[in-house]
Each structure stands twice: as structure tokens, then as C-alpha cells.
């Protein structure tokens, strides 16, 4: 009988338990700072455009990975966009079922080339499809903190408020 067969969980074998005691603190970076500050203050979504290849990055980047040019051409994108792909998440990270499934989507904002990953909301499973036209639903300005979560979710763009 192999060790793996005998030990259904690895702590059943003779094991020493421990952890790596770290937390992470990530700056959002130079491009991220400008993107998220604008989102917080004005609710506008910005992309960075490469003068060489015209590619528009959202979230914006400091440089074009294709041409290696430094980017300082900032343009407003969206706010509407199109769902390029989606998934319906029914379990939390620990495997417990979610009461309300989480719908995550890759969204190409109007005027952007790269894709933004975010959450969909106020959308029924019937209408959920690739190609769905969506728009961001922001937190009220006084609750925005300069985070990607200042966008609460993207909702179908043709819904009435």
C-alpha cells in the first residue's frame, strides 16, 4: 500500500505544519494610479493608446508590450462594451455553494483593444450570451476609493435604470 493510499489527507502522514507569514501590499503603479484616480473622481474609464500600433490597453499600461513604446496618449473608452466570454461561478473558493451565482465576464469596452475582466449584474441567465452589450454600474462617488471595485458590475446596456 502506498503512502498516498494510506494517507487520505497529507496531515495524516507524519508531517510538519507551518505557514509563510506574509501579507502583500501592491501599489497600483503609475498607469494604474491614473486609471483608478480618474474612475474615482469622474467615473470615466481611461485606456492608454500606443502611437506605433494604435492598440488601446484597458486597464491602461505604462508601455506597449508589442512595440515597447512608453504610452502617454490617454483616451476615454466605453463606458459600454461587449461581453467576449463569461463564466457562471457557483461555488466559493472553499467549495461551499454560492446563494447567488457570480457571473464573471471578459468585456471589450468600446474603443479598447484589450479585454477587461469584471463581474456582471442585473442580468438574467436567459439573456446572458456572448455579444451581450453591457455598461458599468458605478458606486456613488462618495463611496468610490480608487479601486476596480468602484465599478460594482456591468449590467445589460439596454436596461432602463
Amino acid at each position, binding site marked *: 500500500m502506498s503512502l498516498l493510499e494510506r494517507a487520505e489527507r497529507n496531515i495524516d502522514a507524519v508531517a510538519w505544519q507551518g505557514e509563510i507569514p*506574509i501579507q*502583500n*501590499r501592491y501599489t497600483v*503603479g503609475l498607469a494604474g494610479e491614473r486609471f483608478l484616480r480618474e474612475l474615482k473622481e469622474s467615473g470615466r474609464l481611461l485606456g492608454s493608446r500606443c502611437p506605433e500600433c494604435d492598440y488601446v490597453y484597458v486597464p491602461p499600461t*505604462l*508601455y506597449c*508590450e508589442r512595440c515597447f513604446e*512608453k504610452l502617454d496618449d490617454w483616451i476615454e473608452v466605453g463606458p459600454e462594451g461587449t461581453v467576449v466570454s463569461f463564466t457562471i461561478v457557483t461555488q466559493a473558493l472553499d467549495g461551499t455553494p454560492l446563494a447567488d451565482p457570480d457571473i464573471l465576464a471578459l468585456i471589450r469596452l468600446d474603443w479598447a483593444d484589450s479585454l477587461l475582466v469584471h463581474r456582471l449584474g442585473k442580468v438574467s441567465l436567459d439573456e446572458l450570451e456572448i455579444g451581450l452589450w453591457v455598461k458599468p454600474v458605478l458606486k456613488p462617488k462618495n463611496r468610490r476609493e480608487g479601486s476596480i471595485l468602484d465599478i460594482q458590475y456591468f449590467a445589460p446596456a439596454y436596461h432602463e435604470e
Partner: protein
Amino acid sequence: MGMRKVAVVGAGMTKFVRRAQETGKELSYEAAKMALDSCELTLEDVDGVALGTAPDAFDGVHMKGEYLSDGAGAWRKPFMRSYVGGGTGVFAPIQGWYHVASGLFDVCLVVCEEKMSSCQPHPQGAFLTIFDHTTERPLGPNLLWIFALEMNRYMQTHGLQKKDIALVSVKNKRNAADHPCALLPEPNITVEDVLNSEVLAWPVQRLDVSPVTDGAVALVLASENVAKRITDKPVWIKGVGWSLDSAHWTNRDLYYPKYVEYAARMAYEMAGIREPRKEIHIVEPYDPFDYKELHHLEGLLLADKGDAPRLTAEGVTARTGNMPVCPSGGLLGVGNPIAAAGLMKVAELFWQLRGEAGKRQVPGKPITGLAQAWGDLMQVGTVIILGIGG
């Protein structure tokens, strides 16, 4: 051996800072772009990228190599990440070297990046895992222990005093005053300042230690035909060497880094160097702690065992001495973003040998220089020798 000649043709670096606002990708980009611009190459000219960076825990990004790759200029290119502890910064250009020497690439970009400030409350939380999780970590170690234990053994074996070693910290932090990217330049520091600084883990005191740092450095390596086309000042990679000792660090006498000697002998042989003390004109040994510079000079056979402190005291290793050591300011003065720190040393040789080091320029037109890095549980030695002419 049928290997092609390889030159360093460009270099770039960011400032070394305690906490950078830039993301790791952005730091990598700034250094890589500066290196390419310095030799007027573009991303299209780059055949492959060699990246060096410490384990993912420091930046807090899993698959950190892949994450950094686009900032390192590797979009849709052959890309390799290597890691041999603190030795990485000198290993990354060795990896770049063999890709060009083999004929596989004509131009290889080498990038080293570290963003240690992401690691809270202190990067030591990640360093702890260097100790054996079962037989050592339960004792409550911290990273300083291995340095303190090695330093004490080195001092005891040779009958050295703290003041003999503090001179290294003074020299390097003063040298760093002339480095535009330095984190801890101290133009007026004295031996007394070092000896009076806070005792962390005796014999290690605060000013014996290099700081936690963010930063990135990049080099452009090119084959001979490319190098001669784009610059009239190629700096050739004359020799490389590396060696790892066992991780059973408590079974070795730490007074002498035998693995550094093995790495150095490999590099000297490749470079055709028979008398290193005469033929190496400028040295950038790894100095995360002041005694390490001395330890490594001895391992590199550039000083007799136990004699490196005397060379330091007599000014031989000063920027204007017969064998300038860490004219950059080293890790003690410029900073210690793990992998980037080692590559900074190689960039320093590049600038020094081309006569472009500004206020840091060593006199006497050096033609051969050696950079060395070290890492993990007193076990990694990496060595590169650069030279002009020939």
C-alpha cells in the same frame, strides 16, 4: 569549445528605492527600455529574454516570471526565468550568455527585477522559508542568523575585529554617494557610526547590512557580428562560472566559501586568467553584509584567506586603489533588490570598462572586471568576467 563571443552592448536601471510606486512590470520596463535605447535597438531586434527574480513570495505574485515577462520585453518571444538565490543577478547574464554563445540567439535581453516592498510586514516573512521547515524553523530563526553565524565563524577563524570589517560598509556607502540610483549613500559615514549602530544579531549591526529595496536592471547581450555593427565599445563576456554547495549548511565550515572559489576557477579558466590578482582590475563582489565582500574576495582568490580586511584597511580596495572593489557603492550603498542588485554589479563593470561611470569612474583605464553574487544557505557562487579588447 566552439562558443561564439558575446558582448554586453547596453545597460539600464531604475533608481533603487525602499518603496517604489511602479509595479514590478513597470520597473522592469523602465530598465529594459533604457538598456535597449542605450544601444539603439528595439524589441524587434531581441531574440529572447533571460529574467532573474527572487521567489514569487517577495513581489507577492505567483508566476512572477510570466507576470513580468511583457515588461521585460518578452512578448511572444523565448523567455526563461532563473533563480539561484542572491546569486541570481549574476546568473541571469550567464544564462543570457549561453543562449548567445551557443548560436541560438544573436541578441538576448537580460532583466532582473525585485519589488520587496510588497512583502509585509517584512520580507523576512518569506526569507524564513530558507530554513528547514521541520528541523530549523521551529527554533524561531530569522534570516540574520545565517549571516551572523557565518560572520562570527569568519572573524573567529582569522582573529578579526568588528572595526576591521566596518571599513567595508564605510567604503561602499561613501562610494554610493556618486551613484545616481543609490538608496543609502552616506558620504560622511565613519567606522564609529557602524560600530555604534543598533546590534541586530551580534556580530551583525544595523550598518553592516544592506537595505530592503525595490528596483530593476537590464543588460543587452549581443553576438560578435551584431555587437561590432552597433557599437565601437563592446564589452566582452570573457568568462563565466557558477557552483552550488549542499544545503546542509550546518555541516560545513562557514569561514570560507569554497563554492565561490569553484565558480571563480571556472570563470578564470574560460577567460584564460592565470594570475587574477594582476589581471582583474576592478571587482564587484557581492556585499549584502560588509563581511561578505571580504569573504568573497578571498573565495575569488583575490586575497589570501583572512587577508582581505588588511587590503581594505590599506586602501587597496578603494576606488582609487590598486584593486577597486565595489566602486558602484555595492549593495550596502546602492541597495539590495535581490536579483537586480547582482545585475547592477555587472552593469557597473560595463559602464566602468567603457569609461562611462561618471563620478564613479575608477582611474587607470581598467580593461578587465569581475562581478560575483552569492545566495541561499551559504551555498551559491556565480561569477562573470567582462573585458574590453581582444
